[in-house]
């Protein structure tokens, strides 16, 4: 059994697989209107034209991207025809449902599928919401012949600026296996062999179950449950801090002070002078003096940097001296 998956896309970079650049000898792009056939006009330029096709692994994937850059200030393309053809040969080994993605605003057109028996089917497309985006179309042919030509034609009348482009992407089914085919076992074993296997399996199962049961019982006898220990410890800790009250406060205070001191930052170096009142009248209001802004805002930042460098040297020196002193005391003790 297998599953058909599909993913209509425009940007092909998400495809992981082996691709080979396939040079279609007769692939051509015709963009223009009746007055401007075939040639790319001065206001239009083909910015990118890629075609990829892989036969080697047998998966009949085909991909085409045609990017048209539209010249700045030009806002009307009257007609465009995009054709994929390969000398009248079938484009796909087995043509089934095909997915077509069109990336453009205000597009309306038709996909024409031509078959080896000369029959042509038309699939209408329309994207007239005026918003750039990808529209995906499912094309299900009614004809049983081999597909030899795909032609996308239509009108695009966008009011667009520079860099907008028409993107077209064709993709066929990707076929993957989702279940491994398991070879059937030989059922021609005799009844005694089957009985022996059954007994062996049964004793194995019972033995394993007993072993597991004894092990888990023994474990539960001596090893306490992790959740149980955690909850009891938390309970004990909470009760301890609640009961210690007065004695616990210095510890909690010191802990909180250390946390706050560890978060000290020079940008918060602000002196706050308290408000001075006399009988309800504010004599001097509360005043802040931001040292950091004062130094760095008035061009004295280099002084702070120099001071910090100097104090760092002193700190490291003091630390080394302390280490030396400690080492000497330990050695002297011994």
């Amino acid at each position: 059994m297998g599953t058909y998956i599909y993913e209509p896309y425009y940007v092909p970079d998400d495809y992981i697989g082996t691709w080979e650049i396939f040079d279609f000898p007769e692939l051509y792009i015709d963009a223009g209107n009746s007055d401007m056939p075939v040639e790319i006009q001065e206001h239009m330029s083909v910015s990118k034209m890629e075609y990829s096709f892989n036969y080697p692994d047998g998966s009949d994937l085909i991909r085409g991207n045609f990017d048209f850059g539209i010249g700045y200030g030009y806002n009307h393309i009257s007609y465009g025809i995009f054709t994929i053809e390969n000398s009248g040969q079938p484009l796909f080994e087995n043509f089934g449902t095909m997915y077509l993605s069109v990336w453009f605003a205000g597009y309306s057109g038709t996909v024409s599928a031509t078959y080896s028996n000369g029959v042509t089917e038309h699939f209408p497309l329309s994207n007239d919401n005026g918003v750039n985006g990808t529209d995906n179309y499912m094309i299900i042919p009614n004809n049983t012949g081999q597909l030899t030509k795909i032609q996308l034609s239509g009108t695009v009348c966008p009011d667009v600026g520079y860099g907008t482009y028409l993107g077209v992407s064709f993709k066929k089914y990707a076929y993957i296996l989702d279940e491994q085919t398991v070879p059937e076992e030989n059922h021609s074993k005799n009844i005694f062999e089957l009985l022996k296997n059954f007994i062996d399996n049964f004793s194995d199962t019972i033995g394993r179950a007993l072993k597991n049961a004894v092990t888990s019982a023994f474990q539960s006898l001596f090893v306490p449950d992790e959740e149980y220990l955690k909850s009891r410890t938390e309970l004990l800790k909470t009760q301890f801090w609640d009961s210690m009250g007065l004695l616990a406060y210095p510890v909690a205070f010191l802990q909180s002070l250390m946390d706050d001191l560890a978060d000290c930052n020079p940008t918060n170096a602000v002196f706050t002078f308290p408000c001075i009142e006399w009988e309800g009248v504010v004599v001097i209001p509360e005043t802040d003096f931001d040292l950091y802004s004062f130094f760095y805002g008035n061009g004295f930042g280099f002084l702070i940097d120099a001071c910090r460098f100097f104090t760092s040297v002193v700190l490291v020196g003091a630390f080394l001296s302390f280490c030396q002193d400690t080492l000497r005391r330990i050695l002297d003790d011994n």
Partner: protein
Amino acid sequence: MIIEGLFDIFSGLAMWVLELLNLPDVPPEIVNIMNEVKVYLVQGGNVVSLFVNWPLFLLLGVTSIGIIIARELYLLLMWILNKIPFIDID
């Protein structure tokens, strides 16, 4: 099961003792004063951190405290071991 039972007995006893102890909380006035003191200490720390490389200061400070504590623990351990005659450690 056995360990859990022992732990239950121990924690039950501890809880009972703690409930008996149940010391009163610190008066809110003192808490307010201490909070005010803490604000000034932190403000001072911020000012000092302007002139001192604060992360370096913290690192060296914590390391120094660790060294002091390690030395004291070592001395305490040796003192205890010296009290055990048959180990015979000088």
